[in-house]
């Protein structure tokens, strides 16, 4: 099995080495072309601006625009400043993108970030942004679903076959328990089940809300994934046992000079774990959003390429097919990434709470064998 995999990797590497020089020259040509194109098309259609506008956080929830008229939901701005205190007002007070207004000494910059007129003023922006609102919707949905399911369990007791939503969720809960928690956490899995289940369903439901047309890119935001990774990292640090810290800071059976090399690497790896966790979820969800938006943007790019928009109409079929395919893929990714985040959290915690028994026994046998 592993031999086959190895061969596969070698083959892949060879192919890449062969293709790479061509790819490089092709890319250069492409960039040159693109530069010319963007100069011409900038005034007409800017795909990157639209895409980044969609995947970034915003202070209003923009649904669609008809000509110059923007249909959007203004969201509350909450700012705490040491000098001015707390100020809460609607984001409509800032005007709209073409015409920004100043309210209470604050306004929005070109990245939709709040800035103060007084540059020296330090303030905290705790606004309910598009992402926060999306998360709140997700949270409310999650609470309604889960509390209803729990109620059904309480009503029916343990010996009635599950039905409805309960039936849909039970295999997922059992999956998290039997395939995520039990194999990685061992006997103490029950303690971490609430955390793992909450992480899994929180990420999953928000991933799926992000896929809805007009939805926010909540789980594709580095702040959110960092927050979730931080939570699992803190749980890991709180629960890590002596054996874990011992192996980390003073690896047994390693000569002293190597320890100087090994311990910093081990400490680094400890911090890389949550960082990788955060970046993995962020990049996967963001990439999904960008791909779908890019495919849809292609219609407009094609329609504005020539004199008539026929190319755009023609491409819309291809684009639609692609985006439907991507939607299904993203639906899968939504669940898979939630599972991966949960599973890796469980694996990291499992490593931190593992008692040394198995390991020590192994070492012991090894010593005996060498003796």
């Amino acid at each position: 099995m592993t031999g086959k995999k190895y061969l596969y990797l070698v083959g892949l590497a060879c192919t890449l080495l062969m293709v790479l020089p061509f790819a490089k020259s092709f890319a250069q040509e492409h960039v040159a072309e693109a530069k010319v194109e963007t100069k011409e098309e900038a005034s007409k259609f800017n795909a990157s601006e639209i895409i980044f506008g969609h995947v970034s956080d915003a202070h209003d929830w923009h649904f669609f625009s008809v000509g110059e008229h923007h249909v959007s939901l203004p969201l509350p701005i909450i700012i705490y400043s040491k000098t001015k205190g707390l100020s809460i007002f609607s984001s409509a007070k800032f005007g709209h993108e073409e015409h920004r207004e100043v309210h209470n000494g604050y306004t929005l910059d070109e990245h939709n970030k709040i800035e103060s007129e007084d540059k020296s003023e330090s303030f905290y922006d705790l606004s309910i942004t598009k992402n926060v609102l999306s998360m709140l919707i997700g949270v409310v949905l999650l609470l309604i679903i889960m509390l209803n399911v729990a109620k059904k369990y309480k009503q029916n007791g343990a010996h009635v076959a599950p039905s409805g939503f309960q039936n849909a969720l039970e295999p997922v809960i059992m999956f998290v328990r039997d395939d995520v928690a039990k194999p990685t956490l061992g006997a103490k899995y029950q303690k971490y089940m609430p955390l793992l289940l909450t992480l899994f369903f929180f990420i999953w439901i928000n991933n799926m809300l992000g896929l809805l047309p007009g939805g926010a890119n909540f789980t594709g935001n580095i702040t959110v994934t960092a927050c979730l990774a931080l939570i699992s990292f803190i749980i890991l640090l709180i629960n890590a046992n002596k054996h874990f810290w011992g192996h980390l800071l003073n690896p047994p059976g390693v000569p002293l000079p190597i320890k100087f090399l090994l311990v910093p690497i081990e400490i680094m790896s400890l911090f890389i774990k949550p960082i990788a966790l955060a970046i993995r979820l962020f990049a996967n969800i963001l990439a999904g959003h960008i791909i779908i938006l890019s495919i849809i943007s292609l219609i407009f790019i094609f329609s504005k390429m020539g004199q008539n928009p026929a190319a755009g109409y023609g491409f819309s079929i291809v684009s639609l097919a692609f985006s439907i395919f991507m939607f299904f893929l993203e639906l899968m990714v939504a669940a898979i990434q939630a599972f991966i985040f949960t599973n890796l959290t469980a694996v990291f915690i499992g490593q931190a709470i593992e008692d040394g028994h198995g390991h020590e026994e192994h070492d012991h046998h090894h010593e005996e064998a060498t003796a």
Partner: protein
Amino acid sequence: MELLKPALGLFFWALLAFMIVFLILKKFAWKPILNMLNERETGIANALQTAEKVKGEMSAMKAENEQLMKQAHEERSAMLKEAKEIKEKMITDAKELAKTEANKIILDAQDQINRSKMAAITEVKNEIGLLSVAVAEKILRNQLSQDSAQDAYVKKLTEEIKMN
């Protein structure tokens, strides 16, 4: 690069919301759901165990029943055999008894017959004796009715006595 800059507000709200959701779900959803799942699994395991046990008991009971049936069969055939023997014995006994009774009756009858016969014979003998005496008397009367015949007879008798 704007995408890689963390935002404080979002971080704050995400952390707060996650914590609240975690605490609420932990207490009101995960705990009852996981408990129920565990309970159901142990319930099913117990039910299976009980079923297995009952199955064992059933087969033991069946074996016992068969044993009982076998015993009953044996007893029945033994009883039948005994009854048959008793019947046969009774029949032979009755036959034996009847035979002896019959024999006894026959013997009695024969005895009676013999006795009756003997009595009849005796009577006949007596009758014959009387008859012969009467006949002899009549003959003698007839022969000795004349004096000469009487004399001759006396003479003869005397001769016979003399001769003796």
